[in-house]
């Protein structure tokens, strides 16, 4: 481990040149030939209504229209964790923007023109836009068939309500915990919906050829999961997995928004109706906002008890989530938080209720952070307030209560090895936590904010990864895997892992993008788990290939296998100093034996990984008894800012973030995650906010009105700190980092604003307008 040559090095991305020369072909860039057709979508203008009639007669008259399809053509449900969606709306629509019909035509313009001529007659139903309204006993029921939906065994939907799932976690004696407290703080925090905003909108192309072979090209984080869901949903049409092929070209950002299945199913379904013709569906930027998945809105009610010395005695955390019109993915966000809403803290007495509520807003799903950014805003704000009330330094109270290795988690399992305290200390030092500085401008106040980082991958207990690895004649390697490089550098990291085992330089390794026909299984690229999970599979594939290499060398050249090792693309032998056999001499064509025959053949490694210790089965009333999470990645972050008390304008001087990644396979890419994730997090707290009108229509579905940061909005300095306490079952000790980097952004801004101005803002975003108005009110 000490003499690593490729792992741990800040290598240049193996797909870097492709991206920088403009050569990368994203889904929309691929040539699909002159027979390409386009689909345009007819969308609901109502948030909740019965569909009385769909009149397609005028649209059908448009020259060039090939077909118009509605829910009647595809009466099939789909969904990742709960089958609560139809491909097109059936009898009712549940949100503005929901797809009702599609027009397929030979060109985009004709499809769009005809789609506008489809007339839908609605009978409006009462609509719900607030999860607390949805929670009321007399609320309109959005999914009357909820009791009959197929779902994973760890969901607990409640029939005849809007509760899609309710995760309860109970441990210890919460009443006694609060009785023992010297101080109790109880308050509410709210987080609105957010949009992922990858620069590349969703895009999918479907082709069902005349032999019923269905191919889908999609901008996707989940090619195998998509194939599985397409196969399940389209099974009534006679498709099985082997008939369906999902090709996932490089994607222009995902952030969770391209996980699972959303609009891609339209390409798959429509292709089955217009056989032999590829059909392209491109989401516009507007559609990207209102009809993919969004981040769920949250109302969190937090009650924490503490001793005078700052020791926490109990937590009661109630979380009410606005999951929108479908919970097929969002309910698992709710579930993940229901298991982990204690944060990275030692709590012995725990009560968590995480409630997933249907509303008539667009469906929500995975978003970088998977619920943790949302609940950590409240929790880390709350903990800062407790520290201030008890007159304890906010960093000290966190250190005092920070979770340690082998502490018991909320669901009764031991915490993994981690460097949380090291992260806290390093961040406090770099941000100069104890030092206060002043500004020259009398209107400007200075503040510092701190937050911890905490997240576990949320996955089914049997989510797995697999890898193939094959050599070519010159000793170069192609790795076949099915994770997605959404920019995080996955392809490069997999190559570095293989390079390390096989002693082949990165310049001779390619990692291939997924194609479900060719590449082995990967569950999805979500949950910050592919470095860990698929990294293990690639490591095993490389070891498997190495064993094949040693085997053929040993049996052909009569060298003991145990004495063989790899170095500089050659096989060498510990006991025979002069022996060296270049890999390129035999990895395809074998080794010639003394009798002039050849032994061996193409070297092809394979590897797989599934965590065999996880289980989602637990007591539904307490969540005790299972082992739902594989491990937590932890860290700490702090910010130093200046805020203008009159305008609320914030200037971030410095942000520091330390994460325990177990082992940074590529530190340059980890730093990239920290810088990029932190700014994405800062955007959610400083600028972004989805707005809907009183009829459920999104008001700001574009980059003019939904502002994401530009180059001028970056902090003066971001200091990334990598901490490495190895993950016992990680490849070279690595664990995930992608999502975690944005989690501390919102609470540390809230805490810094409080530090600067003495105002506590409990609802995101913390815009300058909100700061200025809150400060004005305080001064009055």
């Amino acid at each position, binding site marked *: 481990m000490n003499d690593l040559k490729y792992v741990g090095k800040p290598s240049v991305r193996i797909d870097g040149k492709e991206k920088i020369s403009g050569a990368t072909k994203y889904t929309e860039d691929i040539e699909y030939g002159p027979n390409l057709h386009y689909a345009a979508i007819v969308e609901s203008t109502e948030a909740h209504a019965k569909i009385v009639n769909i009149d397609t007669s005028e649209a059908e008259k448009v020259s060039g229209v090939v077909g118009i399809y509605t829910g009647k053509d595809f009466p099939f449900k789909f969904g990742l964790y709960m089958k609560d969606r139809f491909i097109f709306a059936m009898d009712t629509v549940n949100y503005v923007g929901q797809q009702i019909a599609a027009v397929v035509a030979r060109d985009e313009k004709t499809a769009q023109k005809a789609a506008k001529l489809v007339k839908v007659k609605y009978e409006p139903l009462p609509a719900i836009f607030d999860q607390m309204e949805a929670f009321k006993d007399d609320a309109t029921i959005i999914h009357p068939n909820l009791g009959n939906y197929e779902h994973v065994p760890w969901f607990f939907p409640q029939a005849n309500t809007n509760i899609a799932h309710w995760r309860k976690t109970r441990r210890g004696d919460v009443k006694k915990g609060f009785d023992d407290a010297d101080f109790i703080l109880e308050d509410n925090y709210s987080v609105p919906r957010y949009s992922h905003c990858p620069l590349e909108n969703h895009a999918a192309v479907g082709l069902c050829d005349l032999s019923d072979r269905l191919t889908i090209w999609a901008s996707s984080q989940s090619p195998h999961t998509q194939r599985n869901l397409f196969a399940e949903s389209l099974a009534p049409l006679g498709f099985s997995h082997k008939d369906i092929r999902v090709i996932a070209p490089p994607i222009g*950002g995902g952030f969770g928004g391209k996980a699972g299945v959303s609009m891609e199913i339209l390409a798959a379904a429509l292709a089955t109706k217009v056989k032999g013709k590829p059909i392209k569906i491109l989401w516009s930027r507007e559609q990207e906002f209102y009809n993919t998945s969004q981040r769920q809105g949250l109302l969190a009610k937090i009650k924490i008890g503490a001793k005078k010395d700052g020791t926490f005695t109990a937590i009661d955390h109630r979380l009410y989530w606005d999951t929108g019109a479908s919970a097929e993915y969002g309910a698992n966000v709710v579930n993940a938080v229901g298991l982990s809403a204690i944060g990275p803290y030692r709590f012995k007495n725990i009560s968590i209720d995480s409630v997933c509520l249907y509303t008539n807003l667009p469906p929500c799903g995975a978003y970088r952070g998977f619920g943790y950014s949302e609940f950590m805003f409240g929790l880390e704000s709350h903990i800062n307030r407790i520290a201030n009330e008890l007159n304890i330094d906010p960093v000290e109270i966190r250190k005092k209560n920070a979770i340690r290795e082998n502490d018991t988690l909320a669901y009764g399992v031991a915490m993994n090895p981690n460097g949380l305290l090291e992260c806290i200390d390093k961040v406090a030092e770099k941000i100069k936590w104890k030092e206060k500085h002043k500004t020259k401008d009398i209107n400007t106040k200075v503040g510092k904010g701190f937050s911890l980082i905490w997240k576990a991958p949320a996955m089914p207990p049997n989510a797995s990864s697999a890898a193939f690895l094959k050599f070519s004649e010159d000793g170069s390697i192609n790795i076949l895997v099915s994770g997605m490089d959404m920019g995080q550098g996955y392809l490069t990291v997999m190559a570095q892992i293989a390079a390390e085992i096989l002693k082949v330089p990165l310049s001779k390794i390619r990692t291939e993008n997924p194609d479900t026909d060719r590449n082995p299984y990967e569950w999805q690229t979500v949950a910050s788990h592919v470095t860990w999970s698929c990294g293990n599979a690639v490591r095993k594939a490389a070891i498997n290939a190495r064993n094949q290499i040693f085997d053929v060398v040993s049996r052909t050249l009569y060298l003991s296998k145990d004495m063989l090792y790899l170095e500089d693309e050659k096989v060498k032998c510990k006991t025979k100093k002069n022996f060296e056999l270049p890999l390129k001499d035999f990895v395809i064509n074998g080794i010639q034996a003394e009798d002039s025959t050849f032994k061996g053949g193409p070297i092809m490694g394979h590897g797989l990984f599934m965590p065999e210790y996880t289980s989602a089965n637990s007591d539904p009333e307490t969540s005790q008894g299972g082992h739902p999470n594989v491990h937590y990645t932890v860290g700490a972050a702090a910010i130093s800012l200046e805020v203008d008390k009159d305008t609320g304008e914030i200037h971030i001087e410095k942000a520091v973030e330390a994460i325990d990644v177990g082992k940074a396979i590529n530190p340059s890419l980890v730093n990239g995650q920290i810088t990029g994730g932190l700014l994405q997090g800062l955007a959610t707290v400083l600028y972004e906010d989805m707005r809907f009108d009183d009829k459920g229509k999104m008001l700001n579905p574009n980059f003019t009105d939904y502002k994401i940061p530009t180059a*001028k909005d970056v902090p003066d300095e971001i200091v990334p700190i990598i901490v490495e306490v190895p993950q016992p079952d990680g490849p070279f000790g690595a664990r995930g980092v992608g999502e975690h980097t944005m989690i501390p952004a919102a609470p540390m801004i809230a805490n810094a604003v409080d530090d600067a101005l003495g105002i506590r803002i409990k609802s995101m975003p913390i815009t300058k307008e909100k700061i200025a108005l809150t400060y004005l009110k305080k001064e009055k």
Partner: protein
Amino acid sequence: MKKISINLNGETRVVHVEPEETLLSVLRNKLGITSPKCGCDRGDCGACAVLLNGRSVRSCLVLAMETDSQKIVTVEGISQNGLTQVQNAMLDMNAFQCGYCAPGIIISATELLENNSNPNLEEIKEALSGNLCRCSGYLPILEAVKESVKEDSHE
């Protein structure tokens, strides 16, 4: 439909365009140039930037007809004789992640460096502020542009 002739990446290309067709659409769908991307189709994101007579424009806001007899350069053109200094700095520093915004940012950086051989950080930020990037947090891109200028000054 009108026939236009443009100088695209140093080569004369003749193409028939409709009055409402944008330069972006013609480049992508009729001329096989895919580095400019359609991220928003309303001039917000900058992913479709190209150089029109040396000045960066959002090709989703330019009508193809207006470019008759004009000179257009895309990242394909910039890269055709190998990567430029600023591209190499971006590569070496892992400045981009998903890479979707990269062509637009390279266009903006190229324009900047053509006009200002030694820009300071504020000038670089200003020049790139019309290009959205959701992955990188911008700092690695800004540093790469700065770095490429530094190398320049050693020559």
